[in-house]
């Protein structure tokens, strides 16, 4: 997948409202493979909605979002499943980990679908993130910052054309922010993938090609 085009999209809940100045909603916008995008947003401006539209689990918007010219509304469920395994790596803001599974099991649940990393590589990532001792702890017992790092490891366990990271470092300190930024930068460089990051304030510490205001 080379590009994601957003044409005149607007969340259904915003319809009929006084249009607020936005560089995304009701605009022509293209995310190009290999580039880095930062979407800066205030709360309630539809940041997570945008991610869910691109990731295909919500359709409550007007306008068209297309992948290389294919309207995403036309994609079948098997096609979406393939995209989610091969092209779109998504880190949801709410992380969506399974609290009853251990940190490693949560990551493995994704990795067994993609076979993208070996167990050693995953353990290494835990090491780098400073949560190696939490590998076998149930996620329910991890702090929110630790959970965020588990979710980040999971997002890295797949091939991708686009990393869509919804507030990836909202619960991390500056040091961890840098580590995470480095990991995503490396992964993206390796696969030629784009990184699309949203942020309400604590930006992922990368150099961005494009910065947009939502």
């Amino acid at each position, binding site marked *: 997948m080379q590009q994601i085009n957003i044409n005149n999209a607007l969340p259904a809940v915003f319809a009929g409202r006084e249009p607020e100045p936005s560089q995304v909603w009701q605009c022509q916008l293209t995310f190009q493979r290999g580039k880095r995008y930062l979407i800066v947003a205030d709360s309630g401006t539809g940041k997570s909605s945008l991610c869910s539209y691109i990731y295909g*689990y919500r359709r409550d918007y007007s306008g068209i979002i297309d992948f290389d010219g294919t309207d995403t509304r036309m994609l079948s*469920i098997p096609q979406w499943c393939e995209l989610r395994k091969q092209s779109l790596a998504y880190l949801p803001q709410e992380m969506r980990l399974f609290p009853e599974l251990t940190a490693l099991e949560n990551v493995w649940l994704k990795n067994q679908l993609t076979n993208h990393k070996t167990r050693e590589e995953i353990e290494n990532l835990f090491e780098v993130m400073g949560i190696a001792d939490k590998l076998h702890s149930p996620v329910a017992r991890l702090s929110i910052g630790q959970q965020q790092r588990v979710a980040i490891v999971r997002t890295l366990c797949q091939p991708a054309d686009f990393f869509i990271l919804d507030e990836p470092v909202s619960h991390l300190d500056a040091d961890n922010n840098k580590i995470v930024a480095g990991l995503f930068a490396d992964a993206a460089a390796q696969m030629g993938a784009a990184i699309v990051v949203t942020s309400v304030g604590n930006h992922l510490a990368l150099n961005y090609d494009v910065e947009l205001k939502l």
Partner: protein
Amino acid sequence: MKNLLWKLLRKHISPAQLIGFSIANLVGLTIVILAVQFYNDVKPVFNDDESFIRKDYIVITRTVTGVGAMMGNSSEFDDAAIADIEAQPWCRKVGRFTNSEFSIYATVGLGDSGRAMRSQFFFEAIPTDFIDVADADWEFDPAHPEVPVIVSRDYLSLYNFGFAATQGLPRISEGQVGNIPLAFTFSGNGINEVMPGRIVGFSNRLNTVIVPEEFMKWANQRYGNGGNGNPLRLIIEVNSPGDVKIEQYMADHRYDVAGDKNQSSKASYFLTVIVSIVIAVGIVISLLSFFVLMLSIYLLLQKNTQRLRDLLLLGYSPAQVSRSYVIMVLAINGAVLILAIVLMLIARAHYLPMLEAFELPRVSVLPAIITGFVIMALITIGNIIAIRRKVASLWLLTK
């Protein structure tokens, strides 16, 4: 880290609900297949011993009334009447009795005593498929004339227990009958001929003396006037004897139904009705249990909605996510089916000795097992479709 999916999705499974479903379904399914098996086991009681495939026949005549007799030929069945019977939904096949149109004397030699019995006689013929004597030598060849006849089993009883006993004559077994020297004298059209005859079998169904149709045709041409008259009696193969519609029809048309076949037919009709009711009850129980399982699964999926959604977001397909539950349903339903079959076989082992007196043929249990299998397959398919649809409905998050 195998089966992470199951580890996640088995949450909220309620063993109590599943056990409730299993017991209810087990009861329902057992009732159904036991009823089917019992029906198959008992059905031969109501059948003729000699009919290999279950069929039911009735023999009808027109009611002879004073008025009718004066009107002339009213005791015959004309083509229109036969066509009307053939058009009835309960009728499978109609056979015409052909009567002999010439005079017949039978002479029976009675063993070594040198005595012989001579009596005026009559023949009837019907199409071979209506005859309930198997393997009879049922051919007639004018070149080597010997007339095979089938007589009602009642005649033998009449002779053995009524006649022979009081007249000091030897009793005859069915096996010996073929050896009795029998001669028929036919006369008509100025011809007078004697032919040997042989009793080749006894019929429970036909209360008359039957000869092969080809002989009758030949003899009616030779001694009579061609045998083209309308039949006086008809034999009808029916779907379900004892059907009220048949009785109604016969009464409306003033036809008499011969024999007591109808009695056992009525009993067999009631057996069918009762078994149908029992099967219906079993199916209702099975259906209710099906809904219990449905509810249980819906509840389970409802409680696991978030987990299922999150798995779909990771890239798991609805089919992959459903698989755990589908396997669960298959396992439960498979176990219930096997248990139901075992229970049916145990119950059967208990009631079969009670039926021994009837000397019933061994009936296969396959139809009952297939019935159980089909019902269970339908229930399982219903469950699986429900699971698939429910999971698929989680694909999109609607706000």
